[in-house]
């Protein structure tokens, strides 16, 4: 580089700590922190949207009979609640965390592909708009469940096509995000940070990103075939034309099962960051945590048909998928045991992130146990497509993924805003969420065992009591989330100034070496690593 050019660049450097203002800062954002912030606000908006739909569902189910919504609209509520929460809330939230924290944790100045990062975020709002707008077109939104099984999809109106396009766009966004994360982690770690010294959150995201790249195209294939079946005369999933409706399910769940782990592995990562800090002890079994995460990811590709035990597969098929599914309990158990061993003989305090982390371990494990029960094919045949399944996946997705996201948000909020959050309100948020969550979803186990099918707008009298309890819990849970919004807004506006290492973390995390709030540009020169602990 010539000296002249260098001078010119240097002149620019004076403004480097400044950043563009107004709408340009966000629309043209290439800074990983700004993009991370946008991801997080986007996902929170979708979380509220999906939550409102959920409250619609619970309102209709408060009592037997049809009171508020007609069944065709009720089906739209359940389907869109699922799609919005999975693709709009949980997945983008984890990408937001990745954007904010991965460069800070590995000592990189930014994500590898800053402009692609901008693009992968800005694909999401149009996709979300397509999804939400589909409620207002003739025929309404997707009403075939979030799994959009063929051939029911053939009966939907144009809302189905809008949903398919939205999923395609969100899939493209996820794939770009994953490419970015993989490239960043593999190429931009600070000198001396070998893979096996990397923070667990980065490890879990690295594995998750590979899962995403592997399965998002599979979903794209399934919904594209649905689209051509609907409009271009193909018969991929139509028996009359030589297709097979069950093939759709195979393709969908080949995506769908790894998708479940896409939503939980980064959560494991966040929990693995938080527990050691508040136990004041290094993470127990770092290496085995990495191997367990990788094992779960690999196993996730060979268990998909456990979602399909009632489609009628041969004995050998049922046995294979039953055994493979039960096997997942082993590495998942290893992770739980490692967290407990990290807490054992520590010196624990229970700030909000730790409360959510412990809450996660406790309630997620209950979801894990019901998962093991569901894995047993004969039991699954009884409880498949009943409220037992609804209870199970909300225990792992709400108490799992969402609680981990809350834990992570409280954990890093001071790093993002420069202020400590309100600890009292945070604790209120935790306890309110924890209690109302269980009031909402625990009774659903009973409903499912007793045989209440899911996606029902109306139900027999015997299910009335527990449905009423669940609805009351759901409104409590929904309102509890307003506390979170309050805490975040309050924390952005002001509060006690946070120091660089505000929780006195002893984990050598590079994010604790930069001031709070993290400046617009960090690690422009790679940091020098000083390891107090050896993993």
């Amino acid at each position, binding site marked *: 580089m010539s000296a002249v050019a260098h001078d010119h660049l240097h002149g620019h450097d004076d403004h480097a700590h400044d950043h563009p203002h107004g709408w340009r800062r966000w629309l043209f954002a290439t800074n990983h922190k700004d993009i991370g912030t946008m991801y997080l606000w986007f996902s929170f908006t979708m979380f509220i949207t999906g939550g409102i739909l959920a409250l619609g569902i619970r309102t209709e189910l408060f009592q037997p009979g049809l009171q508020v919504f007609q069944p065709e609209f009720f089906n739209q509520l359940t389907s869109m609640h699922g799609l919005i929460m999975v693709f709009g809330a949980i997945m983008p939230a984890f990408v937001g965390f990745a954007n904010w924290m991965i460069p800070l944790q590995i000592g990189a100045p930014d994500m590898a592909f800053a402009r692609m990062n901008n693009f992968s975020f800005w694909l999401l709002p149009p996709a979300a708009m397509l999804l939400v707008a589909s409620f207002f077109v003739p025929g309404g939104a997707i009403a075939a469940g979030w799994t959009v099984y063929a051939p*029911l999809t053939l009966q939907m109106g144009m809302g189905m096509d809008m949903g398919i396009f939205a999923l395609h766009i969100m899939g493209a966004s996820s794939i770009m995000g994953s490419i970015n994360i993989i490239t960043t982690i593999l190429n931009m770690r600070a000198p001396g940070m070998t893979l096996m010294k990397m923070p667990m959150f980065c490890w879990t995201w690295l594995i998750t990103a590979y899962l995403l790249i592997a399965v998002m195209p599979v979903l794209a294939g399934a919904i594209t075939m649905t689209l051509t079946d609907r409009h271009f005369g193909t018969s991929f999933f139509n*028996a009359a034309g030589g297709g097979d409706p069950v093939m759709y399910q195979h393709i969908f769940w080949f995506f769908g099962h790894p998708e479940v782990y896409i939503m939980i592995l980064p959560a494991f990562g966040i929990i693995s960051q938080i527990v050691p800090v508040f136990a004041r002890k290094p993470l127990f079994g770092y290496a085995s945590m990495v191997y367990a995460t990788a094992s779960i990811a690999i196993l996730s590709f060979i268990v998909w048909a456990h979602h399909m035990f009632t489609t*009628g597969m041969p004995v050998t098929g049922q046995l294979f998928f039953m055994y493979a599914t039960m096997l997942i*309990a082993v590495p998942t158990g290893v992770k739980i045991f490692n967290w407990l061993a990290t*807490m054992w003989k520590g010196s624990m305090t229970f700030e909000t992130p730790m409360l959510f982390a412990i809450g996660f371990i406790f309630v997620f494990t209950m979801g894990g146990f019901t998962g093991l029960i569901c894995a047993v094919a004969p039991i699954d045949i009884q409880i*498949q497509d009943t409220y037992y399944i609804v209870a199970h996946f909300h225990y792992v997705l709400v108490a799992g993924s969402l609680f981990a996201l809350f834990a992570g948000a409280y954990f890093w909020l001071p790093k993002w805003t420069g202020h400590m959050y309100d600890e009292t309100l945070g604790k209120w948020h935790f306890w309110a969420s924890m209690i109302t969550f269980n009031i909402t979803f625990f009774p659903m186990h009973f409903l499912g065992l007793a045989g209440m099918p899911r996606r029902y707008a109306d139900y027999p009298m015997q299910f009335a009591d527990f449905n009423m309890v669940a609805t009351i819990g759901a409104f409590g849970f929904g309102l509890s989330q307003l506390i979170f919004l309050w805490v975040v807004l309050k924390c952005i506006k002001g509060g006690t100034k946070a120091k660089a290492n505000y929780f006195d973390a002893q984990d050598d995390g590079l994010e604790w070496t930069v001031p709070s709030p993290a400046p617009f540009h960090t690690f422009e020169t790679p940091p020098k690593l000083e390891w107090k602990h050896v993993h």
Partner: protein
Amino acid sequence: MIIRSLTQTLVKLALAVAALAAAGGAAAIQSRFNLAPPVTRIAEEIHGLHWMMLVICGVIFVAVFGVMFYSIYAHRRSKGAVPANFHESTKVEIIWTVIPFLIVIGMAVPATKTVVAMKDTSNADLTIKATGYQWMWGYDYLKGEGEGISFLSRLSTPRSQIDGTDVAARQANKTYLIEVDNEVVVPVNKKVRVITTANDVIHAWFVPAFGVKQDAIPGFVRDTWFRAEKVGTYRGQCAELCGKDHAFMPIVVRVVSAEDYTKWVNDKKQALAAAKDDPNKTWTLAELRDRGAKVYAANCQACHQANGLGVKGAFPALDGSAVVKDKAQQIAIMLNGKNAMPPWKQLSDVELAAVATYVKNSWGNSDGAAVQPAEFAAARK
């Protein structure tokens, strides 16, 4: 109102918990906390498996979280705990990998036996085909005593109870949404093979007390079986999302003694023969319209509405419809379906002709002419 029903609910729940505690969880009359009381060997095995899993998981849960909560209690800074620094032990990692692995194998072995037994549909005494329609079930007795019996089975709960115009009747109805006009009747202690398929989208034939749930897939046949060991009426519901009236297509199976079954078969066959329409008869407009009103109420009204105006944006209006005026097009759509409209081939020619005539001559439509069954018979070819 809400507060009152809430208190009632809480009281009922408390009573239920108390009753459960008193009975030791063994003899719940109505399933509330557990799987439906089993009446087949398979359902019993599933019950056993579920208890086994629950107990094993419960023990692990108590052990693991006992450790966690002890640690939370004892190893806290406020109690002056000083952190240790251990963070690795290959031995421990191997132990807590191998032990869960062995436990999982222990769970899989009994489950395997049940899987194999569930899939053995050979040597059935009676074979019944269950066909899922939007939104009712059709049954054909294919083999065994009763062969040739065939009927449709629809929800018999009146619409007024569902939409809330008759709340009192709903509250009093113990079989609200789990009652049908034509129950499936099977003999006790006989192996019944159920073949499932569907006409339009995927449905699932689910009877909890039998431990049976089998998807009914359009264009494909699947099978399952049960041998009910107790006389009684067993109720289930469709368990695969199949569109708007998914919640309104229950399954009711009446298990009767061998003698009662023989009697039912004879009565049913006579009734079916009597109800059979003479295919060569020419029907008058009034006859067809009266018959059509019933067919319409049973099959068409759910979407196109009683007033024939449909639901805007979802189900087209029939009142004033150009398609209804065009007889050929009307017949074609009724037989083959279009978009959300499923094909209605399963109805007889007389039923189809009746409902076509009814639609052509109701509300604002006044075609004045009847559609004869022969026209549908011709269009089917």
